[in-house]
């Protein structure tokens, strides 16, 4: 069966595209899917770091596009999951080193051998973004519950619709439980109402993400982290399972968890 090509994008930088790509790739791999994660952020590559694979890179996507190596040579096998591969970005080149046609061609070459191809888009709406969405069958829009991020997500959805890439669905990342509880943040209903696309997941802000990012161990592998659970749920939804959304409002923060632990003890 041919792979589904899913591009993860956002418009605004720093909302968690790369974290989402890394975690969904690993989560899908854990669920037995054959997955390739492509880093389309040429010149500012990060996906390899988040997956803990940066010291294994020999060839990259530009080498493949320019014919310096075969596609198989550039694919790096993940160290945690057996059926997961990374196609890394080049660090010393820029977005113009690859064209949207190259991206489509590369993805078509891999379609027969995998179940999912996840593409990590760079921020912005220029060439890098065009490269990333060119081969997409589906688009995941990542946003945070902030006005600026939602505005950029809206712009991106417009561009995705104009390119007739879709369907686009939404992941709301870094939702802060205590701020939602006190009504100090756009809530998820507000965001969904503005963007009017299908909601695929809500990921709580989780300090464990920073640790996992720095260590190169995606948070989905941490079975205690709320964000890891959220990403695992999104992966299951991508496979067509009905999984209820996490109730962020009731998600205990660390202190409350400790208090509960002490009480139980």
């Amino acid at each position, binding site marked *: 069966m041919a792979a589904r090509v899913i591009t993860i994008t956002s418009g605004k930088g720093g909302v968690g595209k790369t974290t989402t790509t890394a975690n969904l790739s690993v989560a899908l791999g854990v669920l037995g899917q054959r997955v390739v994660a492509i880093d389309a952020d040429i010149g500012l590559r990060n996906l390899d770091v988040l997956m803990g694979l940066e010291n294994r890179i020999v060839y990259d996507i530009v080498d493949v596009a320019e014919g310096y190596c075969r596609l198989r040579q550039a694919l790096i096998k993940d160290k945690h999951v057996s059926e997961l591969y990374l196609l890394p970005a080049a660090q010393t080149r820029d977005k113009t080193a690859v064209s949207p046609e190259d991206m489509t061609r590369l993805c078509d070459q891999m379609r027969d051998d995998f179940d999912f191809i996840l593409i990590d888009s760079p921020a912005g709406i220029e060439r890098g973004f065009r490269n990333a969405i060119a081969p997409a069958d589906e688009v995941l829009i990542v946003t945070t519950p902030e006005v600026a991020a939602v*505005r*950029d997500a*809206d*712009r991106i*959805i*417009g*561009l995705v*619709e104009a390119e007739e890439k879709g369907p686009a669905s939404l992941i709301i990342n870094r939702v802060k439980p205590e701020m939602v509880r006190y009504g100090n943040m756009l809530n998820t209903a507000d965001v969904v109402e*503005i963007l*009017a696309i299908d909601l695929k997941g809500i990921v709580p802000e989780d300090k464990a993400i920073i640790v996992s990012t720095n260590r190169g161990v995606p948070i989905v592998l941490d079975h205690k982290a709320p964000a890891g659970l959220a990403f695992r749920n999104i992966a299951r939804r991508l496979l067509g399972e009905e999984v209820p959304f996490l109730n962020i409002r009731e998600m205990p923060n660390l202190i409350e968890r400790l208090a509960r632990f002490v009480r139980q003890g």
Partner: protein
Amino acid sequence: MASVNIKGTKNGLLVTLGEGELASILTELEERLTGTASFFKGAWVALTVGQREMSIEEIGHIKALLAQNEVSLGAVISEAPITRAAARHLGLETKRSFRPEPRPEWRTEEEFSEGVLVRCILRSGQAIRHPGHVVIIGDVNAGAEVIAGGDIIIWGRLRGTVHAGAMGDDQAAVCALDLAPTQLRIGKHIARPPEGKPRRKPVPEMAFVQEGIIIVKPWKSGH
């Protein structure tokens, strides 16, 4: 009657220069252009000058004036052969008289009074420009733009920027089920919503110009 008349047609704008001294007419044209720059941006213009005899320099001057406002002069329509020759010299199309395209009889005389119906969510960065009325079924999100020569009616939430009567019509109105624009313009008037928290329960509202200011009232039947 004003000495500069600007009319929207299906193919672009028709700018008619009336009688009188060219310098004062050009000043008026410039005012009209800068006053409503957002509407004209990117438009293609046919210039109608009647029997006026114009030199290459004069037409070149108008062309530059239009270009400054991001409008491109495409054709000159004149009964004076000298003017047409000058225009051709500048690489412009010329015509002896303006003949509107033949159209079915049921159409109204002026393209201007027609409207478009758009069914979509207008997202940040997207824009609708139309010389007539614009009716949108769907939301207009923050960062989106609607510019109409006539009225703007939105069956949905208005969060973006709108300009009704963009060619100088202060009689135009803006209606929305939830009227909360970033900025609202009617003719040459500009308004923005009051600062502070948004209302809990939006009601359909209508904005129009009364005694020189934009006012907003609930949008009910009979208004």
